[in-house]
């Protein structure tokens, strides 16, 4: 798992650097860079839709909003080597698909919340959320969480924060059929084996981690990889 993680992070980082060079922006978070790369590719090759790995979107969010959601949720559940985060799990894809379907009633909640978030960042830092460094992004998120962020009407900043937090948890830990929890990244993070049909007496009485060898989802199965 560790090796795979590092390889993936290296790829993401390369993608980010390419995008940064192309866009001529300062140091930006991975998620923004990826989204920009996607944007540029689309512009250069209008006939071909290329979705970047795991930050995919396209069902509902526009590219700017997708980049913001990706960056925001990654701060809520950040990835690190051996510890998959929102980006690894495809939380953006989960939210994008949910807003086009089960949570269609929250489309304007997201639109307005993201507009307010952007206005607050522009007013306070003279730049957009995605262009802020991680520490500044955390500062913004805390301002939402505590209701101190200005520029919000409806939704209120706490409501917007709470919804993004809830949807991040859903995208990390729901079955992969919903578009997140990619390759069971969330379940691997916390050691949940999924829909195991039978637990034995021995399993139930064990004081150790579950010894099963497979993670089972609604459509996919994968071996448990132990670091």
């Amino acid at each position, binding site marked *: 798992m560790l090796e795979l993680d590092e390889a993936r992070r290296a790829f993401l980082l390369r993608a980010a650097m390419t995008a940064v060079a192309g866009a001529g922006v300062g140091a930006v978070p991975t998620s923004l860079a990826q989204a920009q790369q996607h944007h540029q590719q689309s512009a250069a090759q209008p006939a071909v839709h290329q979705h970047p790995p795991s930050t995919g979107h396209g069902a509902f969010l526009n590219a700017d909003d997708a980049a913001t959601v990706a960056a925001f949720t990654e701060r809520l559940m950040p990835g690190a080597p051996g510890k998959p985060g929102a980006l690894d799990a495809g939380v953006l894809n989960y939210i994008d698909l949910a807003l086009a379907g089960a949570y269609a009633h929250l489309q304007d909640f997201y639109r307005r919340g993201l507009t307010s978030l952007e206005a607050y960042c522009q007013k306070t830092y003279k730049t957009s959320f995605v262009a802020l460094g991680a520490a500044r992004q955390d500062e913004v998120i805390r301002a939402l969480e505590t209701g101190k962020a200005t520029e919000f009407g409806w939704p209120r900043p706490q409501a917007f924060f709470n919804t993004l937090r809830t949807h991040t*948890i859903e995208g990390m830990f729901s079955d992969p059929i919903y578009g997140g929890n990619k390759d069971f990244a969330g379940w691997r993070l916390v050691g949940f084996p999924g829909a195991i*049909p039978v637990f034995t007496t021995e399993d139930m009485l064990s004081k150790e*981690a579950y010894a099963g060898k497979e993670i089972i989802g609604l459509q996919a199965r994968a071996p448990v990889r132990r670091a």
Partner: protein
Amino acid sequence: MATEKTDVVIVGVGAAGGILAAELAKAGFKVIGLERGPRLATKDFAPQDELRYFQRQDLRPDVRRQPVTWRPNTKSRATPIASQSYGNQAGGGTVHYGAVSWRFHEDDFRVRSHTIERYGRTAIPEDSSVIDWPLSYTELEPYYDRIEYELGVSGKAGNLRGQKIAGGNVFEAPRQREFPLPPLQLDQVGVNFDAACKKLGYHPFSTPRAILSQPYKGRPACAYCGYCQGFGCHIGAKSSTLVTNLPDADATGNFKLLTNAMVYRVNTDNSGRATGVSYYGPDGSRDNTVEAEIVIVAPFIYDAVRLLLLSKTEKFPDGLANSSGHLGKHLMSHIQTRVFAAFDDRHINIYMGPSAQKHTIDDLNADNFDHSGLGFIRGSQISANPAAIEGGPIGTMMAMPPPPGVPRWGEGYRDFFAKYYTRYMAMTGQTEELPYPGQTIDLDPDVRDAWNLPAPRMTYDWRRPNETKRLEFITAKITEIGRAMGATHVWPSGFSPGAPGSHHQGGVRMGANPKESVVNKYGQSWDIPNLFVIGSANFCSSSGFNPTLTIQALAYLSADAIVKSYRKSPGPLVRA
């Protein structure tokens, strides 16, 4: 437009309505049941999907289509509650429930007189409207026995005809025979809880649950998959009404179920007699009627109260069958307090096995302990279970705030759950709440549902001195249990800001006379003898125990009375 005639019409075929349907159809009555949702089957529950069933509440009413509103007091405006923990399909709440199956204690049926006898009249809060039930445990015991054997409840007796038995619940009321099935498989939650409770002098035991520990009546034993509370059982080992009473009703040939039928009025004639019900059909058509000799109203309490309020007539301007003025009053719920325990030295693997209230102590429930000088009466069931009573990671993260010092998001939050998700357990104090006349259900003047009917509106705030003191006392006791386990972290959940908890009860309470109650002990209206309202709406006090087995026992009691007495001489079963 559809009009049908039948002997008995039942609104809502859940825990109560399913039993009445089966028992009355077996006795030869022609029965039509109406259900606003679909009728699902075991095969529908194959997807073991926490997002769908726990988080998005697929088996509960959609809060946007079928809102229920709440306000803390009459001065504030009510808003829709965020989640609704009751059923929305045939089988009602028994489809998603955790199947915890308690008999109430003897003193649960006589809270008022028992309290006065032991502590004096002043021990009851002045503003509480608690009354004794019009029936005793002894009267209900044969029906508790019957439903336990019907469902296949797994447990161990703690009081067999007065003889106390270690390992069972020694505080339970005397039972005539052992449970039909032995307790469910012990797990790490039970191991840890039992050891700590015994150290503190309590009497822990495996919670009786209507989940099969062995094959029973052609259904398989539980496989301990863990997708339990909040889910339909994908093998039919959880004894929901879908796999118990409804197949029995079908087998008689006398039962018909109309699904996607939303009843909006109980019809009455000029003499005040109930003549049937009107409902919206699946296509939205309004003029559909079932005419019947007996009308049984058995949905969850919101809809029971709302339906009677919507059915008001000139004779009953304040709601049908409401000459007492008690309709919609004395709402109660279980206020829950949770304490979490997380371990560095062992795994718990909380996601395994039936998830609701796995093991319990009854030492601090009802009046099983001396309340002298405590400043409150009645107690709490204390049980061990996952944070959300469902053990998946989404439920855990939604229901368990991290311990003090750990942030709610970011690296620290991630690392906390990465380490402790498989190493935590929760304990729940499910506290009894006294009824108060100002805790009510009525019709919301502003909010309407998908059928354009006014939403049921709760006016309710549990934060009264008696309830608050009890909750604080119980939280401290549960925290001691967590420490006695040797947990690395022990921390409480905090209390809700006045909103009702789970298991809402009251609104159509039963009583010994028509002045203090809406129905008699059979759920029969004092005003309209061919109208019955049956369910937890009838409860006079809430107990600290889950309500379903008592709802089911009351349904058997009523069915027996209808078959044995009412059929011979239709009229009041209890003289006013």
